[in-house]
């Protein structure tokens, strides 16, 4: 397996983690409505990235797994939702939210760096399929980072000064 295949595999795993984390955060913070809805939308992007990664990898003879369906995560999802509803009137989950957003941001940043590597390698090896893949997905990863950054910026003042 060469470096490009390795990067495809790493990215595929990274996007799967991010998709999973976005869905988890969406459920855990159901009462933070904007986080809930946008995180759910953004998980869709990561799943789509996984699909495209798997497709490109398959063309190169590398097999990457199917995107798991995170839309229903069974009993744990329900538990997380219930837990989030139980603390609807408490301020402490704000801290947890900031931590979760930070984690999402770091995950997305890792993915972004891997997309960067992939697109550099694609240019070096003049692999246009690879380059198309990176340039169709990487901008959305950057948007995922910008979103977490904006939410942290907007929520931190209230959360951190009110405890």
């Amino acid at each position, binding site marked *: 397996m060469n470096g490009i295949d390795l990067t495809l595999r790493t990215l595929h795993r990274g996007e799967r983690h991010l998709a999973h984390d976005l869905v988890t955060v969406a459920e855990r913070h159901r*009462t*933070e*409505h*904007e986080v809930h*809805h*946008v995180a*759910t*939308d*953004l998980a*869709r992007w990561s799943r789509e990235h996984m699909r495209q990664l798997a497709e490109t990898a398959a063309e190169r003879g590398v097999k990457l797994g199917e995107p798991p369906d995170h839309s229903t995560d069974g009993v744990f999802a329900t538990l997380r939702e219930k837990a989030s509803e139980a603390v*609807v*009137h*408490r*301020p402490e*989950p*704000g801290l947890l939210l900031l931590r979760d957003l930070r984690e999402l941001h770091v995950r997305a940043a890792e993915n972004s760096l891997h997309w960067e590597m992939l697109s550099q390698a694609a240019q070096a090896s003049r692999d246009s399929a690879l380059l198309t893949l990176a340039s169709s997905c990487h901008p959305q990863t950057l*948007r*995922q980072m*910008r*979103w977490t*950054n*904006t939410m942290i*910026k*907007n929520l931190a*003042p*209230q*959360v951190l*000064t*009110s405890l």
Partner: protein
Amino acid sequence: MEDATDRIARPWGTRVPYGRHETWPARVDTFLAEGVEPGAVRRWVQSASILHSDGDAMDIAVADGRMVGVRGRDVDRVNRGRLGPKDLFGWQANASRDRLTRPLVRRDGQLVETDWDTAMDLVAARSRELLDSRGPGSIGFYTSGQLFLEEYYTLAVLARAGIGTNHLDGNTRLCTATAAEALKETFGCDGQPGSYDDFDHADVVALFGHNIAETQPVQWMRLLDRLEGADPPRLLCVDPRPTRVAEHAAVHLAPRSGTNVALLNALLHETIRHERIDRDFIDAHTVGFEELAARVADCTPKWAAEICDVPAARIEEAAELVGTAEALVSTVLQGVYQSHQATAAAVQVNNLHLIRGMLGRPGAGLLQMNGQPTAQNTRECGANGDLPGFRNWQNDAHVADLARVWNVEPETVPHFAPPTHAMQIFRYAEQGSLRMLWISGTNPAVSMPELPRIRSILSQERLFTVVQDLYLTETARLADVVLPAATWGEKTGALTNADRTVHLSCKAVEPPGEARPDLDIFLDYARRMDFRDKDGGPLITWDDPESAFEAWKRCSAGRPCDYTGLSYARLRDTSGTQWPCDDRAPEGTARLYTDGISWAHPDMCESYGKDLETGASQEVVEYRSLNPDGRAMLKAAAYLPPHEEPDEEYPFQLTTGRTLYHFHTRTKTGRAPQLNDAAPDVWVEVSAGDAERLGLGEGDLVEVTSRRGSLRGRLRVTGIRTGLLFVPFHYGYWDTAGGSGPGPDTPGRAANETTVTDWDPASKQPLFKTASAALTLVERGGGRPSPAPTTTASAPVAAGAAPPTSGGPAARTTEQEPTEFPHGHEEGAR
């Protein structure tokens, strides 16, 4: 013209046809209370309507110190003497017996009367206590779209520089936040590009989610008059309901709720594919065309037809209509603003105008509408989620300039994050970091989404709630302090309509009891709090409406919404005038962007923009590189499926909306007999197909249930799209046994019992148009018709299914050709 028309039965009155490029002829509508002869009117006092965003100019008739009627001002550019049903009859609510006349405070769980000193001392003491113990972030303000400019400006100064809180927003968030955001995204700055006069010149008028016949009935009269005149315009109507607009449309599209972006992308796709674009305009005035073209390349009518559930051929016809228009006016309202992907969709309408070069000339008008009468003022004065004068919170020079105007240090004005939007303010109150909420002139216990949640927030023990209103509204009943306010006709102030027309509304009569103008209440609070500027002088230096207006002029100077050329005297002499009005445009400005894009430059713009799909803020660096010369920005957006889709349990899409005869939560219109009788109670609209399938009929009592809650209403079978339910959102509980919400003997009545807490990530406007719901029968109607009006979009599909809505002699209104009558400035009460 007829002499007396029943303006409940015939809401738009008599036609006065006129041809394209002609001036809309005047028609003076007058309604006087029963038994009042015109000769008995002692004074006519200049004003404009506050029951919608149209800004219909009128004079209030006064006899014996009482309001006795109204008359349209034929000299005014907006309405040329015409008045809508709410204008004609709504004023009677001022004299309602249940006006609040004394302050109330909560003692042992009960609201009891008190004096102003006690009430205001309590509010000031709690404010100080919270400032000391928890800081400015524990205090929030939620205001209205119905106060006057002077009041918003004063509130903005006292909240942002006095308290130093970031938590100040208006209920305009529910109404037209998306209009403002879409304008910022495209033009870098708020400011309505077009003018109502564009209706006189257009050959095509496209209405996107805008039931103008009911929300701005006087502009609909203008369109009806043009439709009957020479060279009439052709209409495109995008609306899932059989509105009057749809009836007159050349093309009517009734898409599935939540799919506006798909439809608009297809219209853009067709426009570009057929090269119906203005290359020169695009090159000279925009950035982003190549990306937009690439992003809509696959958005064929066929693709959109699947998503929107409308025939591809209809989409092609619509595209041809807007693509071949020689002078296109587009208007946008709640069908877009309160629906899924609100800003993304509204921006695509801007894009359509930009790529077609339909901007800045007569008939090429873009109108991102407002719903509320003074929504524009909340936005420009900074009483919503913006800084005053369209200043950019991310631009330190703008903040410094604002601090200079207020004579405070820049750090005094919170600008570390965007001003907090209403939905987030309520969330902060819910989780307990916000402990005082001052609500002025609005009724969130009926108007916000997911009411069970809103009631639980407002009834928390730890939240100190101040409510300033005319009546004991659903919200006031949950308050700790209730302040009785004076209203329109009892106080003086300026207001600005949806096409930037500024009017003066003068005091005609005294407020009841101890009720006081909102401005006086805010000034009183500022005095008690002893807010100071950086030199130790008073922060607020004005003490009446006119001096507040002058202070606002200084704040607006040099900004897009420049008022420096206006004054009370000028507004009295000339009636409505459109801003900007300054020494470069002393007569006001009919259209923005007649000479290129003026406010998008990185140093000037109100906002650096947001990601339309995630709401992430852009920073100045990105903005500068994207748009260094300050052109209009063509921003593409991908269609995303709605967050809540029908399923087995909740098989219908549910949308909420308005009716012609009511405004907002009906606090005023429900107290005007003609309006109340025309639409006395909530109803539920369903399509004929769905009704037949479920075996339901006109007048059946049904329950609409969603994951949040339920309501009951009588069924009206209409031509609405299949699979969709419509419930008007005006009805609450003040006139039921429940008082502030459903109770043991009061079933759910408010549409918002069922709506979802979800908002557009860019504009933060809540989505009232994309919930899913179930419909069940409670009880057969047994011949009793639904209370829905028959004159409007809620008309029964089977003619004769319900008796026609009429107002009888009580609604008789005269419509006259203008004669000489004094309009001079001597009419204004001083």
